[in-house]
């Protein structure tokens, strides 16, 4: 069976690109002929073809095309309609535009146009709608897709590569001291909850540990400069600028070191389709404290301290408890490692993918 992987923009640096490339490799190992189609490529992604040629590759009715849908792309619907083969929509979730209101009209428009494609894609009647989480699939279920035409496959990831990377000793030395260390991982975007994060950290610093520090790993988007400015303004207002460290474009070794020195990964995102940093933290044994919004609860399961309300004092007290309670730390670490093994390891993902491909055998 010919399997075409269709991605509008394929990058080796983001979660969508990682999922598409690893999925292609796994399907090829299952014995199918695979080709990747991308309009634009960034970084080292291997050989790709232009999307227009996909109709010449997936020609038989038994062939399969998997479209990775993460934002609006005007060519998607005409291409998918022109195909005579079976189709899967792999949905990575599009952030609702409300999060970007007041920060970036460009992002608002992009999110609106992206989410506007959900209904027509649902009406296409594709053979399968494959979400990275059950939360993701809610958008297509709300658009009328039959639940029997849906399935969940967590995103392929490079957590294994992170775990086996050589840690950056300089970063460990920089942040290794008796003081508490909070960690946040994720690009600086309004839905990621950075304002709540700095509030929670400030509360922690005032009440529990005046020497605590917050390490924020994530790239700032120039198109969201007002949001980045708001974060820094809040940090200044709270008087914690000396304790907050921003890291961007880190290597695997630096990221691993950040997880290793952290007392906890604090994830206060208000909207997540999966949240790969949770998996990374669990794999590296870093306890997780978070706000149970979006797919965070389904990703972390019972391996994290999650709260249904976004209360900075709850998050601060949670990190304090983790720091003081060795048995709690151990419990969360063991649960996290077990969860990775059962659900998010490469073996588990390939197993789930094989079950999905069985539908198309």
């Amino acid at each position, binding site marked *: 069976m010919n399997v075409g992987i269709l991605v509008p923009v394929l990058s080796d640096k983001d979660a969508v690109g990682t999922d598409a490339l690893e999925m292609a490799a796994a399907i090829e190992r299952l014995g199918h002929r695979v080709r990747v189609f991308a309009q634009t490529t960034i970084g080292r992604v291997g050989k790709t073809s232009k999307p227009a040629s996909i109709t010449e590759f997936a020609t038989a009715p038994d062939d399969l095309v998997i479209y990775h849908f993460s934002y609006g792309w005007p060519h998607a619907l005409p291409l998918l309609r022109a195909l005579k083969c079976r189709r899967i929509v792999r949905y990575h979730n599009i952030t609702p535009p409300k999060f970007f209101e*007041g*920060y970036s009209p460009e992002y608002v428009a992009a999110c609106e146009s992206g989410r506007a494609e959900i209904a027509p894609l649902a009406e296409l009647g594709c053979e399968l709608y494959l979400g990275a989480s059950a939360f993701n699939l809610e958008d297509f279920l709300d658009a009328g897709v039959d639940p029997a035409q849906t399935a969940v496959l967590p995103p392929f990831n490079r957590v294994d590569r992170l775990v086996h990377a050589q840690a950056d000793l300089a970063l460990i030395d920089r942040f290794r001291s008796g003081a508490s260390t909070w960690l946040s991982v994720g690009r600086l975007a309004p839905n990621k909850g950075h*304002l709540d994060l700095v*509030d929670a950290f*400030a*509360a922690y610093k*005032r*009440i529990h540990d005046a020497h605590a520090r917050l390490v924020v790993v994530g790239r700032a988007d120039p198109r969201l400069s*007002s*949001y980045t*400015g*708001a974060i820094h*303004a*809040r940090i200044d*207002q*709270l008087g914690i600028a000396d304790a907050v460290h921003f890291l961007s474009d880190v290597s695997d070794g630096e990221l691993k070191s950040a997880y290793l020195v952290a007392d906890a990964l604090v994830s206060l995102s208000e909207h997540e389709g999966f949240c790969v940093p949770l998996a990374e933290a669990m794999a590296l044994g870093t306890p997780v404290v978070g706000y149970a919004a979006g797919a965070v609860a389904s990703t972390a399961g*019972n391996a994290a*301290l999650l709260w249904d309300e976004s*209360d*900075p*004092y*709850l998050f*601060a*007290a*949670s990190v*304090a*408890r983790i720091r003081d*309670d060795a048995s*709690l730390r151990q*419990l969360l670490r063991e649960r996290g490692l077990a969860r990775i093994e059962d659900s998010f390891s490469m073996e588990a993902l390939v197993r789930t993918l094989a079950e999905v491909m069985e539908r198309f055998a």
Partner: protein
Amino acid sequence: MNSESDDHLDRIKSEIRADADASRRRAPLPERMMHGGAVDAPQVARGSSIAELARHAGPAFVDNAYRTILGREPDAEGFARQMAALGAGTGKIEIIGDLRYSEEGRRNGVPIAGLRPRYLLAKLGRLPVLGAIVQWLVAFVSLPHLLRHQRATEASLAVRFGETARAMQAVEQRAADVERRAADVEQRAADIEQRVAHIEQRVDEAEQRDADLRSDLVGAVGELSDRLTRAEIAAHELRVYIEGLNANVSELRQLTLTMNHWTVQVRHSIDAIETAEAERRSRSDDAAATAILASRASDTQRAQRLAAWGEEIAARIPRSAAVIDIGVGSDWLATLAARGFDASAIETNSALHREARERGLDVTLGTASTLLARSADASFDALTIAATSDEFAVLLTEAQRVLKRGGCLMVADVKSETPQPVTPDVLEAGGFRDPKRLDALGGRALFVTRT
């Protein structure tokens, strides 16, 4: 149903929530500014009183005044300025009024009952001469209140002094505890130092063992190198020996090839000799056969003679009996066959054999004794033999064996010059009896019966 660890986690979360609730009251966070820098509408306390505001003292008074009147934390400069004013003796009323009637305070418009007149009075007190008179009058009017306030202050100070003394005692107790713990820590540090020294000693011992092992290894490597050298020398000698063997084998192969060639040559020679011998024998047989057939043809009485012999044979053995002839002749064999006997013959002459076969007779070419020896005991009723046969004595012995009891032996062409004596005595000694001689028709035959 929750597992035990889930219940444990739920309990922990309850404790965390309680901790968070307590923290919220202790360290409130300031309101967030809207993004873009615009200040959000402050959530100020609507309305207050001079008594409420003046209840606090020092930094707490300034902080509370800012929060209540301006709805925000005091900025660093403002805070420093107000604290300096307090330190310089400025009254709280004046400070409260300065904040309330500032541009920011006017915008917020927090009502504070009775502030304006008292603020004006405070400001009036700053005027030269008139201000002093005003302050004196205010002080005189306020004297009873001041005395009451002083007594209350004395009482409050006494209470606070007691509280402070108790707090100091608690601090001293904690300091003593800290000293004890510090002593414990020092002791533990000493223990750790001791352990470290012990570990260092073990490390030294391990390093020494490592050095010894390295030394042994060097020695072992040297010995191994010597053995390898000796093994290489032996291997070289073995190679030389094998090369010598190969040379000998090569030479032997050459000799073998030469011998093979010579053997082939010898075989060719033998084959040539055997071929020549066969040809010579064939020519000899042809010549002999020609002479014998010519002799028979010239013997005019031969046919009759053979017929008479045939009658004698027929009188001795039954019809269809097995008769074998050696050397009497193909015409004799034909006579026997005509009489109905199962007649066969052995012929040593290839030409005569060929002649007899052409006549349809049962004749075998070969040495008589050899072929007769292959016959079973008592397998013939009669055996006829020419007296001139080369192996007569041997054939006589065989005749006794192959003839049946009562069988007939005929010796034909018995002459005085025959090489072997064929007398009744000889035949009797050979196991035969009742000899009968037929001398007629130009030939003699002797008939005997096997006993």
